[in-house]
């Protein structure tokens, strides 16, 4: 927590182990916004379930 008390940057070496969270997060965003069953293997069920969210987030839908 010490980094939060001051304004010193966190060394990049300590950031590196967590960078895997970026592709994982992007995959999650992909499942919400674009997947049509290719990744989730649930057909278009997820796609249809997320339908209104996708429109209102401003992502092209159809």
């Amino acid at each position, binding site marked *: *927590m*010490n*980094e*939060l*008390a*001051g*304004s*010193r*940057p*966190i060394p*990049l070496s*300590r*950031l590196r*182990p*967590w*960078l895997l*969270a*970026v592709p*994982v*997060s*992007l995959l*999650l*965003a992909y*499942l*919400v*916004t*674009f997947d*049509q*069953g290719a990744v989730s293997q649930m*057909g*278009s*069920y997820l*796609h*249809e*379930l*997320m*339908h*209104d*969210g*996708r*429109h*209102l*987030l*401003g*992502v*092209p*839908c*159809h």
Partner: protein
Amino acid sequence: MVRTLLVRGLLVGLAAGLLAAVFAFFVGEPQVDNAIAIEQAASQTAEAGHDDGAAPHSHAEDEAAPAHSHGEDELVSRPGQQAGLFLALALYGVSVGGIFGLAYAGLRGRVGPRSDRAFAAFLAGAAFVAAVLVPFLKYPANPPAVGDPETIGSRTTLYLVMVAIGLLSLGVAAACARQFPRYGPAAGTAGFLVPVIVAWALLPTVDEVPGGFPATLLWDFRVASLGTQLVLWTSIGVLYGLVTRRGAASAPMRDAVPS
């Protein structure tokens, strides 16, 4: 700790996504319903004469199929899709919240304001402008019934290119602000706007609103869509600043490092 900042981002993102879903449910759903009513009226007119009223699920079976079905025969009912709105925005919030937490960990103390609260607001504002406002102003959100299904591939690509240009322009802005520290904010703003405006001018325009689609409905939907994203990012910026400040205040003093 990076882990703390990441977990905080995921949780704040979840809360922000749910807040945005509440806004979207009350402000956006009426517009989606109206647009679907128009879409169904149009497809019923088009299908008059066919006896198999079942419209194909375009996304599932064939990219080029003409209709994206929102009828009674669909996979997920309309109430199901309205509940799915909360799931979609919660997951989206977690996703962008995680990236936000890591960006916060990597950039704090390197760019922008020094205090936790101001930096969280700064980062969320920059993300909203670059990843939401910049693409929205070129390729605004569309309700159901707007947009030619045959061009969904190219429209999606153009949208993502615009998101990428917005985010890369943030990097240009940071480099410019560092290069001309005396004019930091002005140099940063110029460094952001120049590539964005060039991209706005060069990328092709999409104009696929069907003739006769009500302009007020289109406008109300787009305002609701931008409002949803605004609620999401405002919540992320404010909530992240609040929890980080509390976390810093409750951290043991022996951990404090003089700078």
